[in-house]
């Protein structure tokens, strides 16, 4: 049977994917560069350390000179990590520490990648309440930046935290929770790595569950007409829009008792490469591009997959990109989306990456972008080897016009004053930060601009 990719290539009059020049930058002198996932952030740290245990981490922080920045998997696009002093990875502080079966809670090392949490929790009859759509992030990094999945009735991952252990700049450990050092806890639940190094986390989980995931390609207008209803009536709902096609797809997930299935999934990485090829060949004619891609997408069948929850949330992202994502009041999503679509489709014919729209329940975390309001997030992307600045500069004013708060780890130009206007507890967070790290050892230039102004 002809594969989907072969069909698409025939429609386009198959051409080889243009090879992009490899970005090869020579390392400076003796210091190797640290880069984030997309390569857009770089620094040359003198010291790159991965402590093997808590005692080593404490010693490192106590004895380090200059700035110390924790690094997770490097999936932030903002300059949260760069320093030419010390970066510290918790990749060796990984795994399950203990479980409380009665409370359905688990204590986890903060360096654990999200993709490595599901199975050990399942072995202990627990599961995360929700997960984002990639699982490469470290737990500490996910919490620090208010990483989220989608679900109108589900909060972001920071809200699943019941207690934390921080290692401070002087090497001391500090325990905090909803009832112990509660102000520090509320500040630390979204902390940008600015308060100390989070070393252990207690997560509130639930009993294991299976999810039935249904992916359906539809005209974008139909998706937009039904988006809010779909969000309200399904456990997890999100949608993607493919620019210049008139089409998108919806992802709906609900808890199920159906048996686990295996079905060929549309490989999103293959999809990204195909969209790039279509852009390369057809950007000269948006109408032809829409005709070809729209025709192809209308042929894609509905995909249904049943899997354990922790196996069904995330997809692999092997095609790197840079991303802007803002979190808007839910009632503003449709208007903002339509304006952003118009900007991209009239000014940026080279864009091929999808938009992603997700729904997140409000919370009460001091620096959470979901604090105090039901939220929709809109994410736009550019291929990692392409200059994103003009496109993001054109879109960002729309996000801000509709009261958006930027994702802490994704590209934005908001200043400290602008951010302070979005967060009622901004000054309280700064006070806690000053208390825990008076010398500013965890502040690189970007974080200094936010918290020392």
């Amino acid at each position, binding site marked *: 049977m002809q594969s989907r990719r072969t069909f698409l290539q025939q429609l386009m009059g198959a051409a080889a994917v243009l090879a992009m020049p*490899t970005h090869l930058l020579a390392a400076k002198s003796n210091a190797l*560069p640290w*880069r984030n996932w997309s*390569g857009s952030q770089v620094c040359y740290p003198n010291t*790159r350390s991965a402590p093997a245990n808590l005692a080593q981490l404490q010693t490192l922080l106590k004895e380090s000179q200059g700035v110390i920045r924790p690094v997770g998997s490097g999936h932030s696009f903002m300059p949260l990590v760069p320093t030419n002093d010390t970066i510290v*990875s918790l*990749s*060796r502080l990984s795994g399950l520490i203990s479980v409380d079966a009665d409370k359905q809670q688990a204590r986890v090392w903060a360096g654990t990648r999200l993709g490595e949490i599901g199975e050990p929790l399942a072995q202990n009859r627990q599961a995360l309440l929700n997960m984002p759509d990639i699982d490469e992030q470290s737990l500490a990094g996910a919490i620090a930046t208010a990483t989220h999945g989608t679900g109108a009735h589900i909060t972001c991952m920071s809200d699943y935290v019941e207690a934390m252990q921080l290692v401070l700049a002087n090497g001391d450990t500090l325990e905090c929770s909803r009832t112990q050092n509660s102000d520090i806890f509320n500040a630390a639940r979204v902390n940008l790595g600015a308060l100390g190094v989070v070393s252990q986390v207690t997560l509130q989980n639930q009993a294991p569950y299976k999810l039935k995931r249904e992916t359906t390609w539809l005209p974008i207008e139909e998706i937009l007409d039904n988006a809010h209803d779909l969000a309200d009536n399904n456990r997890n709902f999100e949608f993607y829009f493919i620019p210049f096609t008139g089409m998108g797809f919806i992802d709906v997930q609900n808890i199920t008792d159906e048996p686990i299935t295996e079905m060929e999934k549309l490989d999103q990485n293959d999809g990204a490469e195909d969209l790039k090829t279509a852009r390369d060949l057809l950007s000269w004619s948006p109408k032809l591009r829409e005709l070809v891609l729209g025709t192809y997408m209308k042929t894609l069948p509905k995909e249904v997959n049943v899997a354990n929850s922790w196996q069904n949330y995330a997809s692999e992202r*092997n095609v*790197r990109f840079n991303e802007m994502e803002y979190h808007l009041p839910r009632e503003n999503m449709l208007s903002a989306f339509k304006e952003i679509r118009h900007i991209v489709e009239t000014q940026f014919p080279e864009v091929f990456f999808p938009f992603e729209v997700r729904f997140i329940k409000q919370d009460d975390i001091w620096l959470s972008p979901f604090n105090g309001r039901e939220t929709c997030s809109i994410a736009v992307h550019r291929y990692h080897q392409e200059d994103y600045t003009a496109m993001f500069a054109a879109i960002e004013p729309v996000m801000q016009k509709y009261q958006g708060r930027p994702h802490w780890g994704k590209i934005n130009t908001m200043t400290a004053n602008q951010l302070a206007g979005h967060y009622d507890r901004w000054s309280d967070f700064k006070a806690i930060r000053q208390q825990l790290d008076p010398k500013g050892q965890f502040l690189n230039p970007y974080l200094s601009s936010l918290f020392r102004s």
Partner: protein
Amino acid sequence: MLRIFILLFLSVLLSACEQGPSPEEMVAISQTLAPDDPQLNEIYQRSCQNCHTLASTGAPLTGDISAWQTRLDKGKNTLLENVINGFGGMPPFGLCMECNADQLTALIDFMAQQPN
């Protein structure tokens, strides 16, 4: 008749030998391999192993000598730069944020089954 059967059997066996392991077998093989050096193994288990033992990532599998040869033909320096800067779906440093150049080179040699 028996002679024909034996010849056919040998030709199938020979062609199987020439083809080497199937993709599924190669995945299974890659998942059994580990560096001899305990320190390098510890790094490998929490970084490279996550992608270089899964066919779905597109990364050359550990121990798949033919797949690695096309990469090695680019030169070790190029491969090292690819790890440092990221390449395709591989993030910069392949998730080992603290690795130095010697360790990264040793990991490449191990996965490509090169003498170190």
